[in-house]
């Protein structure tokens, strides 16, 4: 009996050693002068594209091997890696509020002095800067961008003789004209609560230009109907506009899902979708021949004031103290080469951030190109709202009940509560 017992411990010991060797082996660099870069990649649909990029890169740089780690739920995993001080060499992430928080805490490399930074569209870097950087640093490089606008069926617009609306009144006139012709203007998909957010972001972008979010943060727990800035003060019109658009939805829009919406739009059942460029690929998967383009929400009276809401879909960065800094930078420089980024953006149906890189000739992308060229883009406002506020749920509730005042009061009180319980880390 004792013998078996000892044999078992030995077996367990060997097993532990083997697994430790596997784990450690992943970090060690190969002996033959080849450096292995750990490439953390969040975007599942981009796995194949990056595999091709890596293969080409390795062919050109035989001394570097890049291992792509594509993970689900990257936001959580990158946090655990950073906590354990195991920052990957090269990282791609979605540039959301969480990325801004990480960048602020100073866990990423400072790209201020890197030449690659000069090649990127400054408006894109401005969106990243609004999310957050460590004081005086540039901690991320925008790679490809999305566009949040109204998707419309060009054929339906042509048949009805409609032009792309440039002001709010024209927008409503288009909706009325479609409705009179017996065509449902929009397909609502409120069973998925987040599908209310694209229009909220686009319409809310107008009242929150300038220092709005800085002032909101400065107000903190005092945000309310009487503070200089607040949701109740500044967002009432945007909420009314959103509710007005939702009055043009099909019957039963409360119970339909995002996938239902894409299918209905792809089959020409409705003229428009309140979604962004990300919905084009799933729509084309159902109907490859559809002619769809995008226009920004014309929530203003002057066509020149229109803004396109755009987010950085993929941001590239690297760990602050990676031991393979020089190799990692070489890989990043390669990623931002015009030809590489053009191919990647075209395949992902996104807008490349490098100046001079051509946007693919897809009509949906061409329709938003001028806004990127002129820098008339602004970030997603939900990235400025702390993730602990259930924004999607509050907006969905508002679109059900139509009570804008209650929704805005909830947003203000949630903002104040989160500010009150967010106790900043002090220096020591």
């Amino acid at each position: 009996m004792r013998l078996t017992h000892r044999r078992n411990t030995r077996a367990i010991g060997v097993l532990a050693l083997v697994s430790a060797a596997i784990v450690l082996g992943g970090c060690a660099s190969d002996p033959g002068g080849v450096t292995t870069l750990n490439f953390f990649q969040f975007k599942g649909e981009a796995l194949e594209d990056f595999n091709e990029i890596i293969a080409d890169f390795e062919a050109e740089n035989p001394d570097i091997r890049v291992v792509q780690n594509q993970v689900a739920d990257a936001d959580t995993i990158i946090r655990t890696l950073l906590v354990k001080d195991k920052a990957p060499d090269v990282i791609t992430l979605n540039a959301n509020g969480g990325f801004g928080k990480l960048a602020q805490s100073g866990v990423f490399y400072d790209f201020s002095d890197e030449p690659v930074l000069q090649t990127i569209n400054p408006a894109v870097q401005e969106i990243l800067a609004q999310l957050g950087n460590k004081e005086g640093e540039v901690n991320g490089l925008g790679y490809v961008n999305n566009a949040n606008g109204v998707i419309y069926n060009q054929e339906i617009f042509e048949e009805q003789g409609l032009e792309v609306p440039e002001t709010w009144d024209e927008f409503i006139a288009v909706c009325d004209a479609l409705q009179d012709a017996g065509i449902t203007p929009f397909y609502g998909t409120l069973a998925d609560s987040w599908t209310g957010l694209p229009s909220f972001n686009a319409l809310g972008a107008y009242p929150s230009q300038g220092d709005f979010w800085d002032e909101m943060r400065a107000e903190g727990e005092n945000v309310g109907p009487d503070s200089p800035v607040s949701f109740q003060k500044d967002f009432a019109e945007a909420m009314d506009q959103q509710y007005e658009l939702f009055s043009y939805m099909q019957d039963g829009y409360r119970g339909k899902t995002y996938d239902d919406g894409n299918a209905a739009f792809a089959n020409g059942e409705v003229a428009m979708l309140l979604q962004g460029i990300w919905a084009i690929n799933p729509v084309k998967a159902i109907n490859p021949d559809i002619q769809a383009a995008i226009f920004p929400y014309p929530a203003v009276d002057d066509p020149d004031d229109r803004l396109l809401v755009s987010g950085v879909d993929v941001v590239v960065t690297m760990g602050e103290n990676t031991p393979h800094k020089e190799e990692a930078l070489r890989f990043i420089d390669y990623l931002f080469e015009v030809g590489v980024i053009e191919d990647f953006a075209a395949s992902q149906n996104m807008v490349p951030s490098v100046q001079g890189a051509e946007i693919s000739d897809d009509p949906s992308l061409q329709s938003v190109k001028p806004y990127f060229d002129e820098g008339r883009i602004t970030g997603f406002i939900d990235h400025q709202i702390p993730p602990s506020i259930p924004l999607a749920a509050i907006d969905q509730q508002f679109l059900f009940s139509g009570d804008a005042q209650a929704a805005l009061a909830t947003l203000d009180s949630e903002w104040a509560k989160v500010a009150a319980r967010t106790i900043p880390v002090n220096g020591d």
Partner: protein
Amino acid sequence: MTTMTEAVRASSTGGTARKRASRTRSDASRAMPAFYWMVWPAVIAFALFHTLPVVIGIFFSFTNYAGYGDWNFIGLSNYINLFKDSRVLQAYGFSFLFAIVATILTNAISLAIALGLNAKIKARNFWRGVYFVPYILAILVIGYVFQFFFSNSLPKILAGIPLFADNILTNETWAWTAIVALAVWQACAFAIIIYLSGLQTIPTELYEAASLDGASPWRQFSSITFPLIGAFFTINVVLSLKGFLQVFDPIVALTNGGPGTATESVTLLIFRGGFSGGEFAYQTANAVIFFIVITIVSLFQFRVLQRREADF
């Protein structure tokens, strides 16, 4: 599942087993060393993977840790803020309403089905197997089937009733009933098994004697069956209430807390606020409070229910 069966055994076999156990212990002078070798790994593993994380969690509830980066001690602030947070209070309200309704339904339905499965019906083992199937299926998978049913099939089948025609899952007032339906459907499978095992401990002579005396089936149930499975009833009610208070998967599968925050349970709030919301320490404090609440509720239930169990 192991804790469930152990608990049933502990509360059902009463005093006799304990007496017998103590007698054997006094007969043997000392347990064999082998038994210690069997106990220690479990103790160490339990402490390492359960007790230690709990203690660490309680520790972090007194800090402002966001899940990454630096942190400070902030004393009881998290706990004080919890009581000011209307969203937390709403989540507790929802969890308790849900748990109480689901517990009553689960126990009433599964007791009825268990009585049927214990009777002399044809293909009894087959039916017992059928009723156990929901327990084997992964709730998330089955949840998406239910979601399709609620949002696509029911609106077509019951197109005349506005509540169902408009997808009940997006109805702020009634969405919780759909979650109850899924949770009860799954929970019944295990409750039935416990009730069945309880019913089999009742000697058939009792029923024979009762029917000779002319007792009606209802009288037999209320005077013999129900009192004699009292211990099983207790354990089922306590375990269901505890399980339903911690409801998570059915909500994720059906409504994800929506519409609005109408079906947000405490566990969903802890998960969302703590992981995606970046308020790790704050929601850890919430988890500590929730743990205390569940412990108190369960102990209270045991006291009340065990007092009315039949002694035999």
